[in-house]
């Protein structure tokens, strides 16, 4: 890591370099999950695949939505929609820290000039019934990634343990590119015939979604969608179907989609301010119950290492 790469010039170049780097480390480069999620961890490529005994190595960009973080496109650092870069390797390789540092080098952070630190940070996701130990990684005092060894997901002990890396792409890129306001960040090559900034791509959506998230979303409808997702999740799990060979196919993934949906609907309701402090815990508990049931189902499947379930 002594030969730092040339500096990247745009947001997308940083993403492409991460893709290439982790592909070169043998990860399957997955595509974003096609649903609204709060973080890259919700992608089934992390949540479900961190369960069971089968080895796994994947990396992907995941668009993430956190309605309460919306600032109408005006805050230099906050967005209701942003990108995470996510790496999950199971079992966690012994040289994972070194691999991670290699990825910083790949995006132009010269570890010979910067101060990289692993600062204690225990990770917990009450909605996924998951926790792990690890660090937030600091570069010159700024948090650039989360580094976690999963211990439990969906109430199941992780055996083997997965190593998870999460990069907050906008923040990391702003730092690497030396940009102070996210909307000013070059999205594509600044010398391209049509140079586009992050603002060109996302200012409009931030303005629109902030209004919808905070002021306009129909809470009655969201509430009934939440209940629908909850009911559908449970119904699917209770109706496994046999295949031609007579094996039972549990529909863990479709059920998990409903759990993801419920989680995002909860986030929207939260942004609308209609969930009281006490109710909050109850809603989180309901989503966790769904996530746990999906995890229970997944570990009985072939992909989940459970072989052919009876």
């Amino acid at each position, binding site marked *: 890591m002594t030969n730092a790469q040339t500096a990247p010039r745009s947001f997308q170049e940083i993403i492409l370099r991460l893709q290439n780097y982790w592909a070169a480390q043998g990860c399957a480069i997955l595509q974003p999950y096609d649903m609204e999620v709060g973080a890259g961890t919700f992608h089934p490529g992390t949540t479900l695949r961190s369960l069971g005994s089968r080895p796994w190595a994947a990396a992907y960009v995941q668009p993430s939505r956190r309605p309460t973080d919306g600032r109408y496109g005006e805050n230099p650092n906050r967005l209701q929609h942003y990108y995470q870069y996510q790496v999950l390797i199971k*079992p966690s390789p*012994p040289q994972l820290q070194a691999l991670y540092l290699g990825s910083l080098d790949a995006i132009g952070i010269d570890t010979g000039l910067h101060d990289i630190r692993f600062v204690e940070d225990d990770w917990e996701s009450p909605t996924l019934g998951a926790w792990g*130990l690890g660090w937030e990684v600091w570069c010159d005092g700024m948090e650039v990634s989360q580094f976690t060894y999963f211990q439990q997901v969906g109430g199941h002990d992780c055996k083997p343990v997965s190593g998870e890396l999460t990069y907050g792409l906008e923040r990391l890129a702003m730092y690497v590119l030396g940009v102070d306001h996210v909307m000013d960040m070059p999205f594509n090559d600044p010398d391209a015939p049509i140079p586009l900034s992050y603002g060109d791509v996302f200012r409009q959506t931030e303005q629109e979604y902030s209004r919808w998230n905070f002021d306009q979303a129909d809470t009655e409808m969201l509430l009934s969608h939440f209940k629908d997702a909850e009911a559908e999740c449970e119904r699917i799990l209770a109706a496994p179907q046999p295949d031609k060979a007579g094996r039972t196919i549990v529909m863990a993934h479709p059920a998990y989609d409903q759990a993801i949906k419920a989680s995002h609907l909860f986030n929207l309701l939260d942004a609308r301010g209609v969930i009281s402090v006490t109710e909050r815990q109850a809603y989180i508990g309901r989503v966790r119950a769904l996530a746990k049931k999906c995890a229970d189902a997944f570990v009985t499947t072939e992909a989940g290492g459970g072989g052919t379930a009876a």
Partner: protein
Amino acid sequence: MPDLLIELFSEEIPARMQAKAREDLKRVVTDGLVEAGLNYASAGAFSTPRRLTLTVEGLTAESRPVREERKGPNTSAPPAAIEGFLRSTGLALEQLERRADKKGEVFFAVIEKPGRRAQAIVAEVLEAAIRDFPWPKSMRWGSGSLRWVRPLHSILCQMTTEAGAEVVPMSVDGIEAGNTTEGHRFMGAGRFAVHSFDDYRAKLLRAKVMLDSAEREAHILADAQNAAFAAGLELVEDKGLLTEVAGLVEWPVVLMGRIPDAFLDLPPEVLQTSMKEHQKFFSLKNPATGRIEGFVTVANRETPDDGATILKGNLKVLSARLSDAKFFWENDIRTVDSDSLGAMTAMLAFVTYQNSLGSIWDRIPRLSSLSEQIVSDLGGERKDAKEACYIMKSDLRTQTVREFPELQGVIGRYLALHEGHSAHIADICVSHYAPLGPSDAVPNEVTAIAVSLAEKLDTLTGFWVLNEKPTGSKDPYALRRSAIGAIRIIVANQVRLSLIQYIRQGLMMNESARQRWALDANPNRSETFPEPEAKDLLAFFHDRLKVHLRDEGIRHDVIDACLAMPGNDDLTLLVKRAEALAAFLKTEDGENLIQGFKRANNILSQAEAKDGVEYSFGADVKFAETDEERALFAALDAAEARITPAMASEDFGQAMAAMASLRAPIDAFFEAVQINTDNAIVRRNRLNLLSRIRQICLSVADLTRLDG
């Protein structure tokens, strides 16, 4: 004698766990070695973010051989007993010795354990230490089942004698012990072998690792002070932060920067808190202005540009953080200007205090009512207490406190001054939470005392109404701390008030709040609260007070003797009495008087039980037969004449001194006089005389409750 060197090399160990971990490593390993029969001269433990290190010097090379003899059953004992003995000793029948004994022939087991080489013992002890290490939180990694605080990468375990160094053969979950380690993650140059602790330490230093956290702390402190001094600033020392930062670096490099001008007008507490909590920066103060104007950050490496890039990055993060803080602070000031602190307090209606008791706003009238009565009891101004109560929690609505919850109160104080409240009212924003811990100061200004007491009383009575009392080790709402805080405020300021009256009032107000929130369907329900609950809370205060006084060396029976007196909800009076009694009991007169009192009381109680009457009145000197009797009459008259006014003015010292003067006459009386004479009149007179002793003594404290 060999030396032992152990290093457990892992991924980054949380800073807050390192101090305990190195002590645990030392304790667990040395205890294990000693238990297995080894001795050692000295041991030292060290930690960096990536390693725990133990050095043991002067270890014995072999454990002592142990010969153990155990007596078994008689040779004619039933087979089951003999089998049991064989099982417990692990020997076969033919290995047992038969020896003659008083009761016949008895089996003896002679177990000889030869000395073992230290290497074998070290290997066992270290493996057990690693497997059972008391981390507060530990984890698994990869496919293994071993638990450590973060993945464990290598074990160095080596014994060194004059003949050379030798690796102790051992392995834990596939990690083989060796004689190598590595230096700094970025500045070191790969793994290297070591042959002794001194060699290890020196080579680490060359590989840019300062092994000893105390040395790292000293280095950081000295460099930070120097950097500050050179810039005309002074370091705001923070021991906790220093220890934490020293646990985050193996090669500390101090870098100093200045806070951009735009942020210098923020309250110093905001700057300090933001820099410390978010970035682990030390604050630098300008001694001339008292403002925080600079910072020190500690990097973990040297760089070719002498830290310029690192400092620039840190400054950028700092500016982003402080921009947020400034934005919040300026918004808060604008809100105060447009809405007033009173209006912000009313907005606390939207902040839940406790589910069953409503919002924080709901507390304000309760706090004001209690504060106003207390302050008027104490001779202060009702309107001051009310003014304070209606602004002191307003900062809970500010963005600054939402961002920095630890600044609640401090922010309120600034805003109150901004709105034009006087300093003593503004100070209450901070002091009504006090004392926050055993070393925190208690308020000493009359309004502040009243409001702070009201805060604790409302908290306690509220949770008593909800029946959420502390049990055993469970005290989630820190109610014990509230009670101790109230006690400290009362005692330190010699506050005189009837606690039970405020407890009753607090219970009543909180019960009414509870009913309102429960939308109690039963309109007939009384808003008064059962007296036993009030007594129960008072008893809770008394229990805390006992602990408080016991820490000051006052015996529990002394406290009980004082608790039994009327007015025991006046804690200042109670403490005064207990202190006087404790001091009295330490004198010779005091101790003897108690004996005399107990004797009088015993005789009297027996006579009363036997006669079925109470002797309480009518002792008359004219029936006295002896000089000692007459002398006691005189002494009691004299003592009473002193005790009554002393008690009236609560001068317990005087009262007890007067009581002490009774010691000689009482002793002389018992020496000379037989109480139970045949003459019924004289006997009754003497019993009534004893009753005067009891009555006078009991007016000071319930001496019957004293031990011994």
